[in-house]
């Protein structure tokens, strides 16, 4: 399996005919079992890119190709949305079951898979809670489990931790790192947080401000498993500085010029 993002461009046209170029000529690949992070200043079209890969938005030009895949009915991708999009009328268990129901699996098989991921994210005992009864971090974990349970070829995450408080966010990064090392799922992760990008990614794609273009692709050569110890290592900090160097001017320009 390999995902090819092939010369992707996106131009929005609003009702008054005003044109906004969101993405320009984006090309990169996501290999099997690879953790790719896309990082860029706000308004660089990161979420647009993810929506196109997920098939929730059409590209103006270019294409997304999943190479060497079996043609089964299951969706190729699963998304962890920035705003979670948990179904408020479904309990934790039922939220995680949602995609499995759509695959037409047997009830017992569905439950078995759901239980496995509930255990993986450490939410045993909370299966029958509704989303509004959970903390932000717990909701986030349910959203991750729901996406993982569908066993997608490529997992997509759109700034999943941006709504969390700073402390929970750091803990969830450790958690995600652990889950990823356990599942080794191909993953495309979108963020504006440079530390997060270095901490999580095998490769970081740096986007420019609007229209989003690829400025740089930086392989992150840090050993796994990654944990708290990493954040004080010299090489980690060098990567952070390197990426900040690429993004700093872009972010400054974005700050001074409101859209």
């Amino acid at each position: 399996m390999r995902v090819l993002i092939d010369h992707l461009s996106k131009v929005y046209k609003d009702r008054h005919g005003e044109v906004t170029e969101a993405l320009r000529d984006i090309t990169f690949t996501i290999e099997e079992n690879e953790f790719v992070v896309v990082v860029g200043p706000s308004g660089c079209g990161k979420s647009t890119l993810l929506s196109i890969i997920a098939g929730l938005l059409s590209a103006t030009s270019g294409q997304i190709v999943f190479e060497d895949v079996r043609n089964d009915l299951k969706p190729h991708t699963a998304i962890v949305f920035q705003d979670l999009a948990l179904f408020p009328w479904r309990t934790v268990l039922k939220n995680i079951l949602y995609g499995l129901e759509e695959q037409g699996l047997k009830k017992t098989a569905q439950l078995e898979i759901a239980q496995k991921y509930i255990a993986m994210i450490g939410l045993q005992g909370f299966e029958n809670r509704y989303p509004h009864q959970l903390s932000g971090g717990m909701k986030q974990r349910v959203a991750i489990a729901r996406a993982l349970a569908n066993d997608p070829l490529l997992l997509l995450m759109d700034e999943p931790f941006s709504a969390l408080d700073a402390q929970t966010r750091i803990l969830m990064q450790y958690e995600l790192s652990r889950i990823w090392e356990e599942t080794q799922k191909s993953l495309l992760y979108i963020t504006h947080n440079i530390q997060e990008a270095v901490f999580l990614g095998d490769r970081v794609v740096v986007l420019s401000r609007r229209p989003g273009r690829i400025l740089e692709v930086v392989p992150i050569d840090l050993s796994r498993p990654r944990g708290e110890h990493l954040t004080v290592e010299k090489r980690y900090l060098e990567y952070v500085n390197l990426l900040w160097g690429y993004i700093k001017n872009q972010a400054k320009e974005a700050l001074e010029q409101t859209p």
Partner: protein
Amino acid sequence: MNQGKFFSGGVPETPIDRPVIEKAIVQDKTSFLQIKTHPWLSIASFIIILLLWEMVSQMEWIPPLFLPAPSGILSEGWTMLKTGLIFKHVFASLSRILWGFSIACILGVVVGILIGFFSIPEAIGNPLIAATFPIPKIAILPLLILWLGIGEPSKIAVIALGVFFPMTINVYTGVKNVDPLLIKAALSLGSNRARIIRKVILPGILPMIFAGMKLGIGIALLLVVAAEMVAADAGIGFMILTAADLMQTKKLMVGLILLSLLGILFNWLFQKLEHIFIPWKQ
């Protein structure tokens, strides 16, 4: 020295104008906003009004023919209960309401979802609804009697029409307000459009369906009475009208109380159902 200046909002004041206070304890300025309940006041005022009413009638300050005493209304009601007359009228009205209301709710949900979710039904349905909704339903009753006869169907139809519109409009609004992100999430998890209606739209609009039902039941009560006053041989509306013709004010009052009780009963019932069917909302 300068304190006076700060506290008086810019208007200069000599320090001598105000006595020096050693300690100023902070008070909660919002305490009057806190919700207080007065259950005893609600009950007491209700009883006092009843007693006043009783007195006004007993003393014949207002002739009992126009305003019978509560005790008289109660004993009239008791007699009607014993003879079973009351049940005949209540059941006649209730069955009309239940038929009309149920038909309208089912149709309203179906039509509301269709015009809310699909563009072609929306294009066809919206102007039709906009044109027919403003017609007072009671004005359509003569036409319905012409079409369906003087029996039950015309009464059920007028109730159904009355309940259908608020239900449809509520459901339509509900569908339009379902979070598009949830629909995207369902799509990304492999749902097709039919599954999205069942698993996302339907649970998403449940609160609006209940709001429509609460709105609708009031309309149903109004229309059943109106329809029974036009043509019927049983029902609360019929009972009220004949009582008025015969100057049986007590009986008329019993009818009004029955309508009030029915309204309260339905509201309570829908509240309970809402708690059962929408457990994710407290």
